């Protein structure tokens, strides 16, 4: 157990250990890995990892990571963002990183609100939910991040939860190994901010809620209409094989060098 700044019952620690296991199981050298983080509770994760790291500004983690990977294709680049960071302020970078199909793994820990700044509404806060800035319920609708990233062109899209840990280990491993833009959304409890305001009954109850509403993607697609409200699919939702940015750019370099000679 590391000393850390996360609240007890927070899902971040579970996701972090899952990531550490994925890195260890893949046997990656620490100096070949760069962890890029944004700003938020989950964005602090780099402080507990002994790989290379770049902790940037709120919302821009994917843009920093794009520069790292485009400049050195050999590096394994992993980007850790909260839902506020990755999808609200950083939404534009998310869709463009997916469209570019830059080869990295983006892990958005979705706790449905801004943990670090006191539980404000996020682009993933469900419609109607209470946050510190939606006292009367959220008037806006939430993003389905996986659908968004899939539509934008990612090569690998998956959703896991802080409850389904062995599956999460596998999804993170696959995401790292997959060439092109990989996206793993992790549904994770924030008992301190989100849970309290929405009377979700503390960390354990929030975990039980995840257990009861996360449905393996195959059965989700089959039984969609019969599932309890709030159910969502987990597992690998999409896999494609488009060439990643660096592969395409290598062709550009070859063409430029040929034309540059004449």
């Amino acid at each position, binding site marked *: 157990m590391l000393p850390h700044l996360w609240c007890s019952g927070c899902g971040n620690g579970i996701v972090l250990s899952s990531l550490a296991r994925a890195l260890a199981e893949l046997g990656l050298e620490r*100096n070949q890995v760069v962890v890029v983080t944004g700003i938020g509770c989950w964005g602090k994760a780099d402080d507990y990892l002994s790989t290379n790291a770049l902790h940037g500004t709120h919302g821009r983690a994917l843009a920093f990571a794009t520069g*790292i990977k485009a*400049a050195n294709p050999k590096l394994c680049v992993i980007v850790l963002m909260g839902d506020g960071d990755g999808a609200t302020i950083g939404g534009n970078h998310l869709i463009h990183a997916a469209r570019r199909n830059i080869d990295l793994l983006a892990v958005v820990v979705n706790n449905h609100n801004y943990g670090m700044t006191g539980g404000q509404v996020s682009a993933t806060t469900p419609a109607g939910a209470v946050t510190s800035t939606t006292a009367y319920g959220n008037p806006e609708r939430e993003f389905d991040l996986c659908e968004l990233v899939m539509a934008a062109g990612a090569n690998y899209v998956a959703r896991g939860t802080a409850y389904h840990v062995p599956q999460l280990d596998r999804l993170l491993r696959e995401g790292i190994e997959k060439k092109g833009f990989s996206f793993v959304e992790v549904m994770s409890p924030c008992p301190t901010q989100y849970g309290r305001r929405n009377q979700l009954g503390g960390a354990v109850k929030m975990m039980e809620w995840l257990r009861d509403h996360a449905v393996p993607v195959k059965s989700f697609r089959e039984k969609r209409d019969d599932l309890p409200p709030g159910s969502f699919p987990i597992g690998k939702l999409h896999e494609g094989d488009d060439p990643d940015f660096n592969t395409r750019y290598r062709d550009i370099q070859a063409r430029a060098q040929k034309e540059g000679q004449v």
Partner: protein
Amino acid sequence: MMQLFMQGNEAIAEGAIACGARFYAGYPITPSSEIAEVASRRLPQVGGVYLQMEDELASMAAIIGASLSGVKSFTATSGPGFSLMQENLGVAVMEEVPCVVVDVQRSGPSTGLATKPAQADLMQARWGRHGDQAVICLSPATVRECFDLTIEAFNLSERFRVPVILLADEIVAHMRENVELPDPSSIKVVDRKLPTCPPEEYLPFKPDPDGVPPLAYYGSEYIFHATSSMHGERGYSQNDPENAAKKIERLFSKLTRHMDEIVHFKRYYPGDEFDLLIITFGATTRPARAAAQRAKGEGIRAGVLQLITLWPFPEELVEKEARRASSVLVCELNLGQLVHEVKRAAGKDKVFGLHKANGEGFTPKEILSRIKEVAGSAQA
């Protein structure tokens, strides 16, 4: 030597490539777009990468990431995009990441007289970011200077682990002239200082005696942690006030201790004696020189001091040169940004300004008539 008929923006892009820059990320904006266009054609030829990002926030972030991967990186923009880059320019300051940001200034505020010349980003370059910030800012006045100062910007950036702003303007960026480029082998190129200690002992923010820490790159045998939060020498968050004071102070002193390496300027003094000193930067330099020539015919001895290094401000230089004149005239295409700095260095009473912010450059005639006014009031 190579004779070329070249534009300022082209010279900037070629200068960057000549000193080893291999990564560009940017977002198009006039009057800087030709830099992106040349970079997109030339970088892949030399094994580099051009990326058009989704905006300037992303562009600035991407060049920081690329630089930490060990590749010399740059971006180019104009005022509105420069405003968007400020936040991540702060990251480059805090994480001590070498990189070059070209700001080809145009008229403002906001979209302003889009694409028309101005020199009004001087203070944005200095103070545009939150927090106390130390950066280097250089400004070219000719196409050849665009080439040379881009190289110097990279050299200073690598030498001091600091972002360097090349503050050009529409006039110099779009001007075409015949230039002789130096032989590539004669170009002085500075590369960043790499660590030499065993990997497990590397502290990415522990300064050498010159105040500048060596910088490893991602993927080398050295593992390092860079954070925009206040950090200690290991690069991990550290919040005590003693550490914060030490870090912020060092970000400034690593530059101010080495002003002899950083300050560049040019003097255009008739004979060597003058009564009136005209201080300029960038596009005001040429009309000021022409005006000084004509002033001779009017019996006024005027000299022109072109400031190339604008930040950190070359106070000692300005103070020393101003002492030799009975009055000082600061010409700038804004409502008065440089003049305050000059007054601070040279004394309020003898410093005058000539300011213009209508989207047009100065004519020598305008400057000459102000020279006459200033010379007259100095005599009175």
